């Protein structure tokens, strides 16, 4: 295991989460779970971070913020979607302003579902993320790491149109 996987520094961003998952993220730092055992540090700075922990779903407002934080992080970096809202949009999925999971704005490497996501699941996701981080380090060193292209247009209207198209075709199939 290289040093990269032994020292993952984390930045945590709350994208319209209900704070349930955020409290679980912080619980990981307490003596009971103590993620510093794995060299994990919760840094508040994207420029120092290796792992991007996101809780909550993405909407029109925070999509660009997510992308900005993501692009400020130097490679190799890993994104972990914490909680079902960050994975798919959760119970907010059908909201008029919600685009869905955070993968609508930035590329996600690991999904940790749960409402709220349990600290064990977060730690497990980070450990899985370390494998991805290691792969990315190797490809960065060999110069084959491709920079992720971020979707430029983030509007809920697109999603609604897409959703309606799906619904219309489903309806058409049902009616026959």
């Amino acid at each position: 295991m290289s040093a990269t996987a032994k020292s993952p520094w984390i930045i945590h961003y709350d994208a319209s989460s209900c704070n349930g998952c955020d409290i679980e993220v912080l619980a990981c730092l307490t003596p009971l779970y103590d993620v510093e055992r794995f060299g994990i540090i919760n840094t508040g700075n994207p420029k120092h971070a290796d792992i991007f922990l996101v809780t909550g779903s993405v909407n029109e407002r925070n999509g660009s913020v997510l992308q900005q934080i993501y692009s400020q992080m130097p490679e190799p970096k890993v994104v972990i979607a914490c909680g079902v809202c960050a994975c798919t949009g959760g119970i907010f999925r059908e909201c008029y302003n919600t685009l869905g999971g955070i993968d609508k704005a930035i590329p996600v490497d690991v999904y940790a579902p749960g409402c709220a996501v349990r600290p064990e699941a977060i730690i497990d996701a980070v450990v899985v993320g370390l494998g991805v981080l290691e792969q990315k380090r190797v490809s960065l060193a060999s110069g084959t790491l491709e920079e992720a292209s971020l979707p430029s247009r983030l509007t809920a209207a697109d999603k609604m149109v897409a959703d309606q198209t799906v619904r219309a075709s489903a309806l058409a199939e049902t009616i026959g």
Partner: protein
Amino acid sequence: MTGLSFVFSLVGFGVLAPVIGCLLAGIDRKLTARLQGRVGPPLLQPWYDVRKLIVKQSAQVNSYQAFYVCMSLVLAVLAGAFFFAGGNFLLVVFVLTLSTLFFIIAAYSTRSPYAELGAEREIAQVMSYEPMVILISIAFYFALRTFDTGVVFSLDRPLILSLPLVFVGLLFILTIKLRKSPFDLSYSHHAHQELVKGITTEMSGRTLAMVEVMHWYESILFLGWVGLFLVWGSWFALIPAIIGISAVYFLEVFIDNNFARVKWQSMLKWSWVVTLVCCSLNIVLLYWLG
């Protein structure tokens, strides 16, 4: 200080200080974790951190920030080399201050609001500890009639017996220099704070690795200052010196874990009060006792 002893010291300090400094930083983190009832990271965690930072993608705000940080590191190593070669204490102090100034300029050069605020706080820190450092040199001269640090190895009793109050003052500013709470205003190793990461906010990858390594060098240099007060002209002196330095380091970690950060005004006020009271009393006592 001869040229040869300087070269020996430069090589010795340049190679050994980061090794010991890294282990000390690891012990610090382990102790901190244990004091908080946690298991804590492996002992070599600071080494893993630096190795990781070196392979990270380089993302610099401008091309000269890395140069300033590099100069800061080089000057910190030079200051340590002068000190351990038994050189002039004033020279050590001035070279070290120059190193800190380069670090401050590095933060200012980025124009980031967080880094600038961190740099301003770093200046407040320099203002707080610098009078004490200068007065340590003056007290040192009053006690030994020289600025050469090598003289302490020819004493028949340790310097702490003639400069006890100055030693107390040194312990006070050591908390600032080692970046420990309650005086870790410009940046600290603890997670999440109001300034993002203060003075190091815009530093990433290799630049941040240099900052970490510089911190190892500085820790050893400052613990060397503590040792300056504890040794005398005998090989036995190394035992109480090492015990004393370890005790001081543990005290600093203990203080770090038990105090919340103070405002810069309190830091400035209290460090100047301690400086004035401790150093002037001690210098007056030295005069009085002859």
